């Protein structure tokens, strides 16, 4: 016993020491220095005496996605003026912690010393308006100095999300996140007799048709969808009015009621698998053992989440489609259901996810903020490079159109489909004029409250009541409808 204990202890100490050593050794990759000079040369601006540039550029975010891009495509290109230190503050999103920390910092912005003032911060669509509709964010055209021409290449909906009640655009994004319906070719063949994306799209083009296919799929022993929330975004993105009216009364849109009705019917008929987003069952449903017809997914989800879930054995370390095509093919061919998915538009246009950059009022680095916004969200070349490197769908219509026309962009995972082409079509139809500052809380709580209803734990009225209770806890100023 004693020996065993000592053995375990020594092993553990060994692992710890090892990790310490591994950690202190320089593992962080140096960003590659580009050979051609970057488009914007800050040198022309730096010598001007009247430009006051703060010494510290403070950027706030909830994850390090933007930090990675910034390091590679801005700082790595030598675009940060000498003498300016870039400081990232990352606060996790969990339990609204990011918003709470950000609120506090913004409220103290005036009192804070210049070098501690937030210059740039990131927001998500679901709560963007909370910041956009205040004086804490700057108009990117009037205050920051971008021109209408600079942002003309962007998707309109990415601007709608960050447009305040007076019509000023208060943020800008490097990505667009249109969504599609990814279906299993083999199951489509079995159910519909074809796996051709156009034919499948025809069969799924309205919700009524979608329902019919679900019925057929069920008869063959398949589930149409995996969980309750899979189709949620397609309904919530197409609402006819914001969640809250001018009297602070909560309004549940007809489209949301449709989602509830449809999902309840799907659940009771056994057309779905009763999962929730990010469940392990949900993930397993996307894999080789899954019997689910398809999934609603947006840009990031297909090449990252869905691909990973579809494989039987995960990709080996460092293998990617752009890095080493040969190794990639070897690792993916016949691996799980790689190649069995295809994408189509589905019944309705929608988007899912995305991050926006906002300039904070009181920033002492306006010049630099403008350059960052310009390079990272407006520059066609930079955005093309980002898409090529990361497969992300970026916020430049021309650049994406060029890639859509490029046949070499076919996705092996989707059986040779060029998904950028479909994303292009989907992105055009997105209309986000009915977004509200409360979307995040509303979306989360209605999914949570009605999960019990779908599961049969509570009746409809209880679920509705639980929804109201939960959102009013989150937003005390709101009222139930009379």
């Amino acid at each position, binding site marked *: 016993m004693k020996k065993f204990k000592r053995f375990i202890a020594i092993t553990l100490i060994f692992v710890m020491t090892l990790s310490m050593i591994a950690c202190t050794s320089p593992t962080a990759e140096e960003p590659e220095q580009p050979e051609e000079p970057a488009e914007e040369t800050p040198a022309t601006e730096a010598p001007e005496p009247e430009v006051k540039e703060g010494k510290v550029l403070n950027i706030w975010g909830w994850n390090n996605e933007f930090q990675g891009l910034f390091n590679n495509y801005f700082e790595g290109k030598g675009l940060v003026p000498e003498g300016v230190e870039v400081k990232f503050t990352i606060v996790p999103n969990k*339990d609204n912690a990011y918003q709470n920390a950000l*609120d506090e910092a913004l409220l103290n912005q005036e009192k804070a010393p210049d070098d501690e003032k937030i210059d740039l911060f990131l927001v998500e669509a679901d709560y963007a308006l909370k*910041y956009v509709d205040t004086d804490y964010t700057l108009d990117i055209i009037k205050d920051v100095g971008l021109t209408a021409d600079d942002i003309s290449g962007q998707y309109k909906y990415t601007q709608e999300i960050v447009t305040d009640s007076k019509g000023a655009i208060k943020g800008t994004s490097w990505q667009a996140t249109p969504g599609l319906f990814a279906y299993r070719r083999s199951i489509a063949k079995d159910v519909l007799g074809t796996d051709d994306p156009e034919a499948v799209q025809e069969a799924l083009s309205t919700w009524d048709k979608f329902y019919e296919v679900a019925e057929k799929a069920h008869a063959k022993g398949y589930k149409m969808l995996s969980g309750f929330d899979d189709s949620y975004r397609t309904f919530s993105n197409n609402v006819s009015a914001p969640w809250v009216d001018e009297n602070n009364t909560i309004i549940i849109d007809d489209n949301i009621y449709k989602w509830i009705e449809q999902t309840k019917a799907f659940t009771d008929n056994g057309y779905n698998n009763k999962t929730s987003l990010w469940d392990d069952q949900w993930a397993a449903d996307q894999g080789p053992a899954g019997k689910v017809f398809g999934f609603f997914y947006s840009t990031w989800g297909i090449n990252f989440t869905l691909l990973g879930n579809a494989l039987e054995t995960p990709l080996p370390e460092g293998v990617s489609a752009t890095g080493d095509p040969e190794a990639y093919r070897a690792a993916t061919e016949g691996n799980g259901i790689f190649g069995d998915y295809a994408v189509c538009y589905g019944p309705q246009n929608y988007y899912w996810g995305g991050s926006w950059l906002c300039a904070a009022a009181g920033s002492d680095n306006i010049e630099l903020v403008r350059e960052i916004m310009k390079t990272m969200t407006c520059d066609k070349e930079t955005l093309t490079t980002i898409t090529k490197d990361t497969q992300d769908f970026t916020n430049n219509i021309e650049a994406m159109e060029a890639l859509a026309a490029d046949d070499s962009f076919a996705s092996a995972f989707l059986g040779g489909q060029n998904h950028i082409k479909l994303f292009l079509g989907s992105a055009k139809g997105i209309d986000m004029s009915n977004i509200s500052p409360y979307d995040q809380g509303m979306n989360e709580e209605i999914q*949570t409250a009605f*999960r*019990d209803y779908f599961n049969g734990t509570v009746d409809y009225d209880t679920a509705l009541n639980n929804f109201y209770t939960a959102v009013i*806890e989150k*937003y*005390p100023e709101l009222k139930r409808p009379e």
Partner: protein
Amino acid sequence: MNTSKNKKYKSISYAKWGYIFLIPFFTIYILTNFIPLISTIYYSFFENYMSGLKQIGPNFVAFENYKSILFDSDLPKYAYNTLYIWLLGFIPQITISMLLAIWFTNIRLNLKFTSFFKTVIYMPNLIMAAAFAMLFWALFSDIGPINNLMVSLGLEPYRFLAEIKGTRGLVALMNFLMWFGNTTILLMAGIMGIDSSIFEAAQIDGASSWQTFWHVTLPSIKPILVYVLLTSLIGGIQMFDVPQILTDGSGGPDRTSMTMIMFLNKHLFSKNYGMAGAICVILLIVTAILSFTIYNNITEKDTYTKSKELKMKGGKNEK
């Protein structure tokens, strides 16, 4: 109460040292806890929250917050949830711990590997509650190992987190696993501290092992039982991490695993200082009443009046 008559210790002349030694505790307490507590109570009488980045209030509303918490909210339901889940974990905890403590201290039974078992059953107490809840969430998911096992045994799969009983049961099970080792060891110490001559006397009188337990062991370890009950109840009222992570903050299904602190947490995160303050004050009063009742019912005297006797004993029994 005043024991200054005790000429032997001349306590009065040292009284100032009592105050001096209390300075660090009270200074830090006031600085880090008391001021926030008072401000919380103060704010409970105001309407005061954040609407986005706009501050609403503070507007003095007297007892409005209390009224809406007590009469319009579901606080009683959450109090019931908390108590229910706590009892669901505590009853097996105290029963199993008592059983194990008796086994471990029973010389006739003479169990082997007791130190190994004690080491193992204490271990869950050390892991981060949040991490523990995450592990359970994986274990008991719809296709988790537990459901796999049930299916392979020919049982129907059970969706633990979609069922009220399942979710409450899991929270209680985790509380049980995290604390029964600790309780076992405490109770063992209590049993081992009993003078063995009492047991011998009971044996001579022909008492059965049940009678011995009921009339000798149990009364002798009463103070420890009180300690266990009190600390467990306090922990129960503070129950938060485990149900929060397990249900992802929703307290689902149908808010039946929502504890009082989870409810408070909802208001904290929406920065509703007024309502949160009112919940805090109500919680304070409830806790105070609960602990006071238990304390008074089980121990006739409070600990430090009794401490005089103990001190004498401690002096005598010095080893």
